């Protein structure tokens, strides 16, 4: 384990940014935090929670796939793929790190999504232990320890210092690059912090949310539960929950006619939208209730069914904080699954 005084953190950032684009949470004018590219003078806010999750780095909201150049009746196909640049995402919470596992299972299983794989290969994740979970947090429900985030490097931050531990080869490499700015350390401070975090976890209001009652094989049992009507009733059908969700991975492929050609791109889509997965015959989920149910059944039943019991929710709490009508997965889990462990 290496450590470094926070006084020197900008030097660390400068060092990392020499070889790779560095992204870290920065305070925005509206008071929330967002990942921004570090440049000289950028101030790391240390914020753990960002409105947009770091999934954007591997699965951006819009991404060009290819282009067609048209001239008169001629069409030329242009491959727009490039070898990506190396980048580092710094300060990722445990829950958000976990989301990459969930996305990997979708995009890296055959057929591999080359765009995602390209980004994944070039990205290094520096996670940060979460010392101040919010009341909306329930990562523990999914077996995530906020004090022990995964990632290529795990970091723990105190008032004055930051501790790093490499977890992967990529992490080792990055740590070695900043070796001159860091020094060896024992894990006493980190241990104390972990204990502290554990205490907070026991106080979280959502600590008892359980996945019991969900998981693979539960489709028949849960699909026609009458509670779906009531739960979905107020849903506006906007895409907020899906767009702030670190694990939602649905996208649409669209063509944009530029006048001189066509850009084929993909962009996030939302199962909440009436146009989602629309086919020649119409739409297979005609009502908001069906669309609403799909989202939660996918996260809590279908996904685990296909992925060794892994739920595709990490308890980050973004949808709890951002849903315009405050309907969310916790309310669904409590209503459909049951109250406590």
């Amino acid at each position, binding site marked *: 384990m290496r450590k470094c005084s926070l006084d020197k953190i900008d030097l660390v950032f400068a060092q990392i940014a020499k070889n790779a684009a560095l992204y870290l949470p920065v305070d925005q004018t509206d008071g929330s935090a967002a990942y921004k590219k570090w440049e000289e003078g950028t101030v790391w806010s240390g914020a753990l929670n960002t409105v947009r999750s770091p999934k954007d780095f591997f699965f951006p909201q819009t991404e060009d796939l290819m282009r067609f150049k048209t*001239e*008169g*009746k001629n069409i030329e196909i242009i491959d727009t793929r490039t070898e990506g640049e190396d980048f580092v995402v710094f300060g990722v919470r445990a829950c958000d790190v976990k989301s990459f596992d969930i996305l990997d299972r979708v995009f890296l299983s055959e057929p591999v999504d080359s765009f995602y794989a390209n980004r994944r290969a070039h990205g290094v994740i520096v996670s940060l232990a979460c010392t101040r979970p919010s009341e909306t947090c329930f990562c523990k429900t999914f077996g995530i320890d906020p004090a022990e985030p995964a990632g290529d490097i795990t970091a723990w931050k105190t008032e004055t210092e930051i501790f790093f531990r490499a977890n992967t080869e990529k992490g080792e490499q990055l740590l070695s690059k900043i070796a001159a700015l860091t020094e060896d350390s024992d894990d006493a401070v980190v241990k104390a912090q972990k204990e502290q975090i554990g205490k907070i976890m026991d106080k979280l209001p959502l600590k008892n949310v359980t996945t019991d009652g969900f998981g693979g094989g539960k489709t028949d049992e849960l699909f026609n539960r009458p509670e779906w009507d009531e739960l979905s009733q107020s849903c506006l059908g906007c895409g907020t929950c899906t767009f702030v969700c670190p694990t939602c991975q649905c996208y649409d492929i669209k063509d944009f*006619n530029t*006048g*001189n050609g066509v850009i084929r791109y993909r962009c996030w889509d939302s199962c909440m939208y009436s146009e989602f997965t629309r086919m020649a015959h119409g*739409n297979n989920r*005609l*009502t908001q*209730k069906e669309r609403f149910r799909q989202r939660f059944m996918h996260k809590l039943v279908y996904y685990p069914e296909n992925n060794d019991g892994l739920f595709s929710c990490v308890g980050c709490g973004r949808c709890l904080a951002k849903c315009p009508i405050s309907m969310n997965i916790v309310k669904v889990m409590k209503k459909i699954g049951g109250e406590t462990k």
Partner: protein
Amino acid sequence: MQRIGVFVCWCGSNIAGTVDVKAVAEALKNEPGVVFSTDYQYMCSQAGQDMIKEAVKEHNLTGIVVCSCSPRMHEATFRKTAAAAGLNPYMVEIANIREQCSWVHKDMMTGTEKAVILGKAAVAKVNLNTPLTPGESPVTKRALVIGGGIAGIQTALDIADAGFPVDIVEKKPTIGGKMAQLDKTFPTLDCAACILTPKMVDVAQNENIRIFSYSEVTEVSGFVGNFDVTIKKKARYVKEDVCTGCGACLEKCPMKKVPNEFNLGMDNRSAIYIPFAQAVPKVATIDPNACNMLKNGKCGVCAKVCAAGAIDYTQKDEFIQEKYGAIVVATGFNPISMDKFDEFAYSQSKDVITSLEFERLTNAAGPSAGKLLRPSDGKHPHTIVFVQCVGSRCDACAEKGKEYCSKICCMYTAKHAMLTRDKYPDTEVYVFYIDVRTPGKNFDEFYRRAVEEYGVKYIKGMVGKVTPEGDKLKVQASDLIANKQLHIDADLVVLAAAIEPDQSARPLATMLTASMDTNDFFTEAHPKLRPVESPTAGVFLSGACQGPKDIPETVSQAGAAASKVIGLLAKDKLTGNPCVAGSNELMCNGCSSCANVCPYGAISYEEKEFRMPDRTTKVRRVAVVNPAVCQGCGACTVACPSGAMDLKGFANSQIMAEVDAICK
């Protein structure tokens, strides 16, 4: 995918001088959808048109782009050419490379470049064109004239003379309107009744004309050529077809103290009445507010004296449904109320009267049998003050009166003044005016005669106050030319009250979806070019309902309206403009934004049942455009937030395709 043919015209050297037409034809050859492209000296010539026809056949063209002069010039020509070749005429688009290109640019390269772009835009549009067919609707060959004054009478007579049936709806018991109340008419001074009543008789005797007197229009639906109208025939308690108009009932009716509206309340009539001797129809009417029999069942004298047995106390309002092809509005005008003009003491003294009351006072059939006598004491007035512009030409911000000029007052005041001095030379006559406006044939001569021959004292200035004192009216006024205050002891003050549209006009406009200005005058389809048509197709305007006018103007407008109606009724079918708006009911919210901006009232709403995704049904309100009424302006398409409303021939997608082609 379309198969488009492009035809680039040289127009001699008009286009070819500045545009490399061959290069344009060549460049457009490669545009999506284009299968044939050529150029020719004169595309509009017979040879050019034949070339297009042949190309359509040879290349199975589905669309045509002609790069030539303005579509305002030859769009119709090329549409006909296309039709002759078996193509839908609306599959033709014109790229204007003459007026808007070769003629305004000097340089060959610039001109050619622009011509290519304009051609591309036209191709882009044709790619999205769809064949359009104008809608057809039948025409009901019957006209409705609302209002039985001189305007309505003249319109009805002219339409009837052309052989079409006409119905006149008049809310009063008789036709005749305001003109029937007038004494003499300016500037010829012939008697109003002498020229009007024969026309009223003509109306009554014309086989093509039906008069619904004492009736009102209560409901209008439908559209040009196909209006459905409900007419309420108010109960007059007299069988119209039985009454002979002998007048026996009027004499015997015990209730004789009803203010006579025909004489503006200056004398009384009986509860059963005929407004005036030459009324058409000459049928009695019982005033239900005055008749004791109707009010409390006690009397029944008229029924007893009626030899014909025409009285029917049980008569009810009757509703008549009729179909019409055209509707003429001739609802006329009224003098405005003088209630707000207290400075003239109208409500305080019987001897302050309006000009229309003055007409009745000087009319031989009026309350004083034509003798000019003061209403208060029946004495002959020796000093008369006429006040012009009472309530006309007021400040926009003034609480009372109208902003506009009532137009007729200058002339009738001159007439009143002249006639007074003619009959009673011992009378002093003053006329106070802001301006004297006499633009009409023989009008100024008439006014000058009043001043020069008859010695009427015209004073530029306004009367400030009229105060009754004893049997005199103290008139306080200013003489703007002499710049002094005047005090006149008058015996009679006559106010030239502004005129305003009849109260019935606004509800009627709502029924007709015809537009009105802020003064409640009906607006024309075009203020200069279509002055007798309302923007609502099939609705025409006659007389003062459209704006203040005198009798000759009213009669000429009435004739013009009639000729427009005749032109419409002469058709068996109406062919519409196919470039009309249409609403996609699946996207329509029924919010009424489109109907709010439609100048033609072409949009209505219906409740329609839709199948919802969850297999329930929902009734939604959706817009429906009547293609026979829509003129295709497109105002609705922008008012519609959901984009449900689109315009054929100028669709959103087509215009955007043009934008794209131009900007690429």
